[in-house]
């Protein structure tokens, strides 16, 4: 006897964010990638529309990474010491669809690069690779408030995602995103109320909810992943129930969390699995854009996404 599935119908939907502007849209990217847009919980294809697959962005820095395990660095070979070549390798060798550039070199403790230098780096990166970009600051609020407006302007009309705005420091970034046509990452500390408050504050600045991507802050497998999972689940349930202030796509910084763990540092095989499992778990919580580090982990997760999205659908 055939079982009748009980289907939930949701009044709300997550907004769709386009990353990258093609020539006809005023940019120079080879393609434009869409994330978000779901009107159902993750993978429950029959309950609503899930128009876009989760996407993975390769994480690259504007300097050679300083705290990545040796064996992770080795995955990129010599090119890791030349950020532009590194980015190029991600795109051409590993077929990255997206890059997430972290302006770590601007941090006072890691090179303290100036505004001009940071902006120039982005210009050169844009001419070297043609995939859509996510650009995030150095994690130093004061410094980011100086460089990010210039960095954002250097990528004007390229329709990037820039970040990360936090509750105590969101205005400069929001103003830049607004001025230069980017979307904005709103980062909250595993707290659904702050996530929502930050989205409201940003939208009060004039940036539409549709141009906000939420970073719920995640923990790696074994390091609080379940907290992130449940916060994402709650936010998504609220969004689908019609709460516009939470109806934003999720970005998850998988690589930076997974490669901090002692398990990942102790063996490269374990590290790859650790990163891949963290990513695939959060895909089930609703992650739309994953920022990852190891090409092999990314390959595994991409395969996983393919399987999820091609098996006969319930």
């Amino acid at each position, binding site marked *: 006897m055939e079982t009748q599935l009980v289907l939930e119908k949701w009044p709300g939907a997550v907004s769709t964010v386009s990353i990258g502007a093609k020539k006809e849209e005023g940019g120079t990217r080879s393609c434009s990638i869409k994330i978000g847009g779901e009107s159902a919980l993750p993978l429950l294809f029959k309950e609503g529309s899930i128009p876009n697959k989760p996407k993975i962005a390769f994480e690259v820095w504007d300097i050679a990474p300083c705290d990545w395990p040796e064996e992770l660095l080795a995955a990129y070979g010599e090119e890791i010491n030349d950020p532009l070549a590194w980015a190029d390798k991600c795109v051409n060798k590993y077929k990255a669809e997206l890059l997430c550039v972290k302006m770590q070199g601007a941090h006072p403790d890691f090179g303290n690069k100036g505004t001009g230098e940071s902006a120039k780096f982005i210009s050169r990166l844009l001419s070297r690779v043609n995939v859509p970009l996510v650009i995030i600051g150095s994690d130093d609020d004061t410094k980011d408030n100086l460089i990010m407006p210039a960095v954002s302007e250097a990528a004007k009309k390229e329709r990037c995602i820039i970040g990360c705005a936090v*509750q*105590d420091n969101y*205005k400069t970034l929001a103003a830049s995103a607004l001025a230069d046509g980017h979307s904005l990452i709103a980062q909250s500390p595993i*707290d659904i*109320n702050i996530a*929502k*408050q930050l989205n*409201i*504050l940003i939208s*009060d600045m004039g940036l539409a909810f549709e141009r906000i991507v939420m970073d719920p802050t995640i923990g790696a497998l074994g390091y609080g992943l379940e907290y992130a999972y449940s916060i994402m689940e709650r936010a998504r349930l609220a969004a689908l129930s019609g*709460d516009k*202030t939470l109806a934003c796509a999720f970005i998850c910084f998988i690589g930076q969390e997974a490669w901090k763990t002692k398990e990942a540092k102790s063996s490269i095989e374990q590290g790859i699995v650790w990163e891949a499992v963290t990513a695939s778990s959060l895909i089930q919580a609703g992650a739309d854009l994953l920022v990852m580090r190891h090409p092999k982990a990314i390959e595994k997760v991409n395969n996983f996404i393919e399987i999820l999205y091609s098996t006969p659908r319930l």
Partner: protein
Amino acid sequence: MQKFKVTFLPDNLTIITEKDKTILSAAISAGIYINSTCGGDGICGKCKVVVSKGDVISQPNGIITASERKNNVYLACLASIQGDLEVVIPDSSRLNFDKLTPEELAERLSGLYSKAEDIRPQKAKFEDKVFKHSPFATKLYLELPEPTLSDSISDLERLYRALRKFEEFPVIQTGLFNIRQLGRLLRDYEWKVTVTLGKRNNTVEIVLIEPGDTSQKNFGLCFDIGTTTISGQLVNLNSKKILGTKAAYNQQAAFGSDVITRILHAAKTEGLKQLHNAVSDTMNQIIKELILEHNVDLNNVNCIVCSGNTTMIHLLLNMDPAHIRKEPYVATANFLPVIRAAEAEININSRGLLSCVPGVSSYVGGDTTAGVLSSGIYQKDVPCILIDIGTNGEIVFGNKDFLVACAASAGPAFEGSGVTSGMRASSGAIQKVSINKGDFSVKYSTIADKKPRGICGSGYIDLLSEMLEAGIIDKSGKIKVGGSRIRQSDSGREFVVCFKEEAGGNRDIVINESDIENLKRSKGAIYSAASILVKHLGLDFSVIHKFYIAGGFGTYLDVDKAIKIGLLPDLERSKFVFIGNSSLAGAREILLSAQAMDMAEKLVSKITYFELSVDPGYMEEYSQALFFPHTDLTKFPTVKFNG
């Protein structure tokens, strides 16, 4: 023990004190009250003094800046006396114990009597409840028939027989003191005496027997003993007429601004006695002024009814409040028997009676019972809410069928404590604010139109709402950059409400980001407590018919602005009724009617106390309320900011 001379300036008061005593405790002994919100823990920084001569040792602290240290500024609570001293106490560190001016008082009590009714015409309060006039102390003039051989019952029984002709009292009690003089008194004064009866439930006590007819001279007092303010009212018990009302600050403030700090102080040596003296002194002072101004003989003031939170009543009666603070939060007594006022060291007729309005629990006291009584929500067919916006933020929800109460630990921010330029609602407090959206210039009005000295609760509500409207702060309370009134401070950015040149003081009147954080927590606590209380019964705010706002600000409250900042829920504005001091009003009803006291006792057993901290949803609800107006904007559909 070495002793030293300490001279306080500009008072020029000198006292002898022991080595190692703090300047704060020396000042209290000298009768000078210094601000000490934290109760002497060295945290609040309100007790700065200048040591102009002599040696002190002070514990290091983060409050005194380097330049202040150079100028010999110390925290009075941390500086211990090491030699003869001269100490200058600046005005900003003093507790202002001036009595409220008549205008302030009129303002403060406006919700009850006249003014606020002009603005908010609802007279919902006393509309449908009339207690039978039967005052707590009743005087009866008796002309007894002389005994004869055929009518030879005893003097006392003769007296009882005459009394029972007035009313069928089932039990009459008389103290030996009165019985001893009865025989002489009746015979010396031709069997004509006035008897003062004290009433409680079905029992009456003969309090006093006086010669002749004094029955026209029967007065009583009702008191609201607040953590911050003590208000007292003199009432003619025969005519029900209010002769006068006075308010003064609770001098216990010198030992800490909230009940918890005071409970902690009570545990110190002499602490309980100090706290008791502070409250009884304040009350006696008020009583003295009331009877002098209204030409009433203290001997004709026969009774007093006190309403206050559980801790205040404990301290009044010199009972140790320690267990109120400790789990499972149990008071020594919520129902107290009628006692002699003299036992609490309150000066009225030496045999006069004192009664306390019964409380519900350790954190929902007699002031709440009195509020329920005077607001009349216990008689309504439809659900209503009573909120007392004070440090303890008591909330009662219900109608004639049910009543639930909770206490929201809102903190003292809306009473002007724990905020940089905060002050109580007394003269010179900024209470209304409007801000120009273009240049951020500020227009304000102060209580009694005095030069501004600080900002009181209603001023903060106005200020926050105006700052949101003008875009000076965002919805999380962060101050934006720019303009001559915005600058960086040690506690985040600050906005200057009034420059010192204009204020005439020595400091600018400001609000900084950490003040806003405090106020946000206070308003969040009150809103979320009310919300969770209503939700606990499976209901929401939309079912509420009337919203009674009591106490706290005392004077003026802009409901619309209070909604804009999310202190009150976004309901139709006409549902809000500002009722002023409901605790004092309830105490007066009890003073005038034994029926009201019976009702108060019934109410206590009817009110269910709901402990917020055990509700799993409370923290979530509270964090959502930490935003202006609220994280869930759909709960505040009419609130829009143009800034």
